């Protein structure tokens, strides 16, 4: 019960935070003065709040026409969420696979792999996404084969390439964390016990280490998702994807900002709450988020 109350409180805090953020541009000085505009801030927060209460009536104007936001938004959000979740899963699976392979190779190679991942991790997301796109175009020019669609056209959503691009950096981050968790875990005594009983190293990795690492992974996922959201912003811009981030960029105005952020935040929050609950329930591990 206290779990539920805690989660609700956290949820409330974040919703309030997002609404307060949405008013920020109106708080800042404008037209050459340097005083904070508190009355404008409060007015815009009120406006956002009222907008959220009557969600059905929120509109946005595009090219002179005024359209209702809500039906439009659900399609856009689900498109973005599919890419985000797909990329996250892809990153987790590939990182898990690579960690598994790394743990089975010799110790002296591991150091080199670590330096390599460190360098890869330092490359900005912009560069990785641009290089992916250029590589596809280059391959197409060389071979005449279009492996993926490079840009999205209206009515023809693309999924695969954005997912792959978006998953590269999180994959490296997950990989790094997984390797360090596994190394710490492998030094614990229960692993020695399992080895002495004759359990195969692969079995130890899959059954015991993985289970114990899940808590830290869930905790770390929060950072990764935050990072992916800003990658998504660039990705949608480059691939001309009609997702939530490009929508936000086009209509940077308080009510739309608040509503769009909430639309993407609520599913993520539910995912974390569910993950935390499942972990506490089944592995008896306390996850502090």
């Amino acid at each position, binding site marked *: 019960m206290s779990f539920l109350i805690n989660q609700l409180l956290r949820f409330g805090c974040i919703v309030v*935070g997002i609404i307060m953020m949405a008013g*920020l541009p109106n708080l800042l000085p404008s037209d050459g003065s340097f005083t904070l505009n508190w009355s404008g801030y409060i007015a815009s927060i009120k406006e956002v709040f009222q907008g959220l209460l009557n969600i059905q009536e929120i509109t946005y104007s595009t090219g002179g026409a005024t359209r209702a936001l809500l039906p439009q938004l659900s399609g856009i959000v689900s498109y973005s969420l599919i890419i985000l979740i797909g990329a996250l899963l892809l990153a987790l699976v590939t990182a898990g696979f690579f960690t598994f392979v790394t743990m089975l190779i010799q110790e002296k190679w591991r150091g080199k792999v670590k330096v390599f991942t460190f360098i890869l991790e*330092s490359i*900005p997301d912009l560069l990785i996404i*641009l290089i992916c796109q250029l590589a596809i175009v280059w391959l197409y020019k060389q071979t005449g084969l279009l492996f993926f669609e490079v840009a999205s056209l209206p009515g023809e959503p693309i999924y695969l390439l954005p997912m792959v691009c978006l998953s590269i950096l999180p994959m490296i981050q997950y990989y790094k964390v997984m390797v360090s968790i596994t190394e710490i875990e492998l030094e614990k005594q229960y692993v020695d016990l399992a080895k002495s009983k004759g359990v195969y190293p692969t079995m130890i990795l899959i059954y015991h280490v993985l289970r114990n690492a899940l808590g830290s992974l869930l905790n770390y996922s929060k950072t990764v998702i*935050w990072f992916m959201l*800003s990658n998504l912003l660039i990705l949608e*811009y480059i691939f001309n994807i009609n997702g939530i981030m490009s929508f936000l960029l086009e209509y940077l105005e308080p009510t739309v900002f608040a509503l769009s952020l909430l639309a993407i935040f609520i599913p993520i929050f539910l995912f974390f709450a569910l993950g935390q609950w499942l972990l506490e329930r089944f592995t008896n591990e306390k996850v502090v988020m």
Partner: protein
Amino acid sequence: MRLFKNTYFLIGFLFLFTLIATSFLHTFVWDNHVAQTQVLYEKGRAIEAAPLSPSLDIPLGTNNLGFHFTHMISIGAKYTIGFAIIIATIRLLTSLVFGILYGAYLYRFRRYITWFVDVFNYVPVTLLALFILTPFLVENFNGFAYTFWERVGIEVVILAFLAVPTTSILIGNELGRIYNHEFIDGAKVVGGSRLHILWKHVRPHIQPQLWIIFMQQLVQTMLVLAHLGFFKVFFGGTNISFDPNWPDPPQSMSYEWSGLIGNGVRYITVYPWIVLVPIVFFALTILSMNFMLEGMKSVTENWRVKFSTDESSAPNYSKNPSPEKQFTPLKNHTNQRRELRLNHKE
């Protein structure tokens, strides 16, 4: 000084130092000269027109007006890196004030405070910065409301303050953990005032961490600047031409790198180097900053080990020190490094 013996730190430092030194040389010795080659001739015949691709004569190529990237990158380095350092410094100092307030006085309420700051873990900084800064930095039909330096000031302050909540929590949690150590209780019992304890007992433990946080913030600032440039919100303002007959592309005011990115984005598939050159320089700078960070981490991590194995630097210890002596702190900086992650959470 131990830092400079670390290979990682040295590589990163040398790269950054060369970049900034070249940049200042460019301004003071060559007076910001930017070479321009609009058409490339060979034996009196024109063979290529701007934008020229990278070649032996023009190492990084030119942009679409024929200006050499070598020179533009070199001039821009000091603005981009310099302002990133200023922003990171403001972030660190402000967060330190709030962090001390939180870690030393409000640590009991850490759970609720963390919840309130949690919202920053769901909103990307780039998006928030775009949302807040676009009205200031992008010229509208009436021109800018603020002068160039006013815009720079506003941008620096906003980019700095966007990271203050999370960084304060990070520093505050570190402080709170140090305050929970037993030796702090000891100092309190003996009668040390709060300020005395903070300065004499907590500071030596937090100082190496602060350097690490500073480097992390520096890297993050560079990333945000690159992103903003990508969305054509340039440092110090985006100059947009509203002339219907000659609609110039959005221009940056100086040669700072984010402006170079923003100007080149349109040519990505046709002349990729125009946007890739500045982005690669961003990448190299971020990489070298990360190298320095890694160097710092490994130096603070190995501090205890280095001191205890180095016989000459610790002459007071006999070959087999008594058990109590083994566990007395050897010097101020004997704390073990704790993993600092970006999620600022405990």
